[in-house]
């Protein structure tokens, strides 16, 4: 294994995060804090408890998921798209590295960033609302799986994108609606039956539900199913990334 290459890519990407700390860390933390202020404290105080959990506390897992999903996609897609855009990708392609090492470097760094953001948001949330974590190990497992799989998804997006518009169109037009409609701010049991059924086709429902279960033991779907869907998404992303490197899709001419 080319350990030095993985370290070089990881270190380079982490340096980029610290160079753009306002964009990478402060911005997502600020926007999530505003959600807590508005939905948690201001509006949340007028909403009744959901399954025995105050509304402010209820939205914490969903908001963490919302942030880490969007940040994971944004970080890793930018990480691979920018070298493509500037032309510096030639160096990675001509280096003695396997695709696994390239992915480990880029996705590893993007995952670390997302985990840092998730930890900061969790800490920030604790200043606004009461938080309990019933199953810390499950919580960390869901957090890690979500970060890795969405970073992989972002990597695929970055390879696929042939312009800046494409890079932002998927997060804005696909991921954001799925996340908002995936139970970030509500339990899907609060929806009319037909919308509950439709919601079950939204994969984000399973991620948020499983993650929320690790906090409050409340879930819209079974934890096992949530875990299965998350792992399934991870495997699909891994297979696509493997195919990309095998064929050189949009990387090698």
């Amino acid at each position, binding site marked *: 294994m*080319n350990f*030095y*290459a993985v*370290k*070089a*890519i990881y*270190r*380079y990407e982490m*340096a*980029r995060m610290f*160079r753009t700390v306002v964009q990478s860390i402060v911005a997502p933390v600020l926007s999530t804090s505003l959600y807590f202020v508005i939905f948690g404290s201001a509006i949340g105080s007028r909403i009744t408890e959901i399954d025995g959990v105050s509304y402010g506390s209820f939205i914490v897992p969903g908001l963490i998921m919302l942030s880490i999903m969007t940040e994971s996609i944004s970080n890793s897609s930018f990480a691979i798209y920018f070298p493509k855009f*500037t*032309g*510096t990708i*030639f*160096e*990675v*392609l*001509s*280096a*003695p*590295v*396997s695709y696994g090492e390239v992915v480990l470097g880029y996705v590893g760094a993007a995952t670390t960033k997302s985990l840092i953001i998730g930890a900061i948001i969790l800490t920030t949330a604790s200043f606004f609302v009461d938080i309990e974590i019933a199953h810390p190990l499950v919580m960390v497992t869901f957090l890690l799986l979500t970060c890795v799989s969405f970073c992989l998804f972002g990597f695929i997006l970055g390879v696929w994108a042939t312009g800046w518009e494409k890079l932002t169109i998927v997060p804005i037009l696909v991921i954001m609606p799925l996340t908002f409609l995936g139970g970030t701010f509500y339990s899907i049991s609060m929806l009319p039956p037909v919308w509950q059924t439709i919601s079950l086709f939204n994969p984000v429902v399973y991620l948020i539900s499983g993650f929320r279960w690790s906090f409050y033991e409340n879930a819209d779907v079974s934890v096992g199913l949530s875990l299965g869907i998350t792992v399934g998404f991870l495997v699909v992303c891994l297979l696509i990334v493997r195919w990309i490197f095998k064929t*050189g899709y949009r990387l*090698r*001419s």
Partner: protein
Amino acid sequence: MHPTISIKGLTKTYAGGFQALKSVDLEINRGEIFALLGPNGAGKTTLINVVCGIANATSGEILVDGKDIDTAYRHTRSKIGLVPQEMASESFETVWNTCRFSRGLFGKPASPAHLEKVLTSLSLWDKKDTISMELSGGMKRRVLIAKALSHEPEILFLDEPTAGVDVELRQDMWNVVAALSEEGVTVILTTHYIEEAEQLADRVGVINHGEIILVEEKEKLMRDLGKKQLVLHLQAPLAEVPAQLADYHLELSDDRKDLTFSYDTRQNSTGITALLSELRNADIHFNDLETSQSSLEDIFVDLVHKDQ
């Protein structure tokens, strides 16, 4: 000893159907400076990209250091450094960090001493903490070379390294290439500046329309294909070349004051003595004379035109 790079039957056809390389066979010897010349779109960069792993070959075999570039890519790529044609740089990174990144990427442990040596040799040491976007075009070009040398490659590809740089920097780069060659690094150079190849190369290859049309020792090439000319500056303008001099195929300049005679130095008799004698007989006198030899550029242009 096997060649450091061996290319056999290399073909590259792009997705759109354009065939950039047509069954290219080429061997590069260890430690030599090889200049690959060709007009725009001839296939020079495609050839480099395939050898370096940036582009996939359609068919053919490429061995680097005796090993296949696909099955033993870790070994082969670790031997190669590439300075691309495009000025691709990490705009927001310092020179030091971007070179350190390159070294790590190619599987080498950190070596501040080596990076310092490389940056110093390229007059970049005082710019090591400057971010790339603040550097001039010439300096950026040096950074690309520094990055390519950061992992101590045994083979260096320079894809038009002096395009757009000033004369002083070009000379600096020539010195760097010469020094690398002395250290045993194999250098493969593509360039539009034929004088660069003339100055540096041990061997020259000419590629056109995706085919290698010639590979030859530079000295031999210039000896074999080069022409020598004798120019006579006449005392008085000549209306036309006299008929008795027709066998010499003399060219009369537009102002009628110069006569040019082309000859082959490989012949036992160049014909110069006889020509001068004939000129005297024809009562044609000259003030001065000069000889010139065709440059590599003339040879290159001739070859490419013949191949059209």
